[in-house]
């Protein structure tokens, strides 16, 4: 059988059209908890403190995690490392450690017995942030060496990639 070029009926359409598909949010297991991430409201700041006491005391809360609870865990790796470039200073920990580096940077995670209570508790996590300068244009940031990158610069590395004779190709195409 060769399906290439043919219109092949899909086996999964019937249940999806009836609303009988099964997506992640349909799965509720016994004892399942809900997680709500507390995120940075600012683009760049030094984390002076995270007060999780009120969130931890909130009904339903099972745990409130911050970077301090993740000590020893490796940072999130880059998807496609390039030979000869050291990404270490730029890597992100699962929860912000010491600094936040963009709006939405995950700072804390609330685990609760109920999704609504998880949201309530997340709102009670108090962040003490000391804002730092931001750079909004990659082209003018080359001289930056922010402390949140452990002193590294904005030029992470340079990758040269080319093949063929570009000038000859353009000349022949004219």
């Amino acid at each position, binding site marked *: 059988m060769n399906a290439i070029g043919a*219109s092949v*009926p*899909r086996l*999964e*359409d*019937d*249940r*999806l*059209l*009836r*609303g*009988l*598909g099964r*997506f992640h*949010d*349909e799965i509720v297991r016994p004892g399942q908890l809900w997680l709500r991430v507390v995120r940075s409201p600012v683009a760049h700041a030094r984390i002076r403190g995270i007060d999780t006491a009120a969130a931890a005391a909130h*009904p339903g809360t099972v745990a409130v995690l911050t970077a301090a609870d993740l000590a020893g865990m490796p940072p999130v790796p880059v998807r496609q490392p390039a030979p000869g470039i050291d990404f270490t200073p730029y890597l992100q920990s699962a929860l912000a450690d010491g600094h936040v580096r963009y709006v939405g940077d995950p700072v804390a995670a609330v685990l609760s017995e109920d999704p*609504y*209570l998880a949201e309530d508790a997340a709102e009670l996590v108090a962040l003490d942030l000391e804002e730092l300068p931001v750079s909004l244009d990659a082209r003018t940031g080359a001289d930056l060496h922010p402390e949140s990158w452990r002193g590294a610069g904005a030029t992470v590395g340079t990758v040269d990639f080319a093949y063929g004779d570009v000038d000859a190709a353009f000349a022949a195409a004219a």
Partner: protein
Amino acid sequence: MTTPVPLELTANGAPHTLAVDPRRSLADVLRRDLRLTGTTVGCETGACGSCTVLVDGEAVRSCLMLAVQADGTAVETVESLAEGAGPDAELSSLQRSFKEHFALQCGFCTPGFLMLTTALLRKEPDADRARITECAAANLCRCTGYEPIVDAVEAVARGAIALEDA
């Protein structure tokens, strides 16, 4: 948590008497309390339209409507579209048209598009392509590129697929 508020509505014709926290969304009550999980919640902010249901015939984003606001209404979800009950119920003409035109891939947004365009075709059974496109622009789909969805709805509007129940 606040005091639960009484709520009466019909969902796909079946009457329900509930008591719900007043801050809960209609989408959440449909999914969790009534187990109508065909209505999917994509963004929870009204942007994507995957949670579109019909409330007294009007297409609404059920993530933006509080469940208590639906008190006394008739709610229709994707589970009501097929003719008859159970997994062997016959698909509606619009559902069949979606299938024939490959108007779905992952299927997450599909219930929203089906309800949105069901409401359109009830009011404007001969809607033209421009009108269908305008209407479908209310919802987001990341798989199809929209053209197959418009094709599917247009086929029903043109009568190429019989509209006996849409």
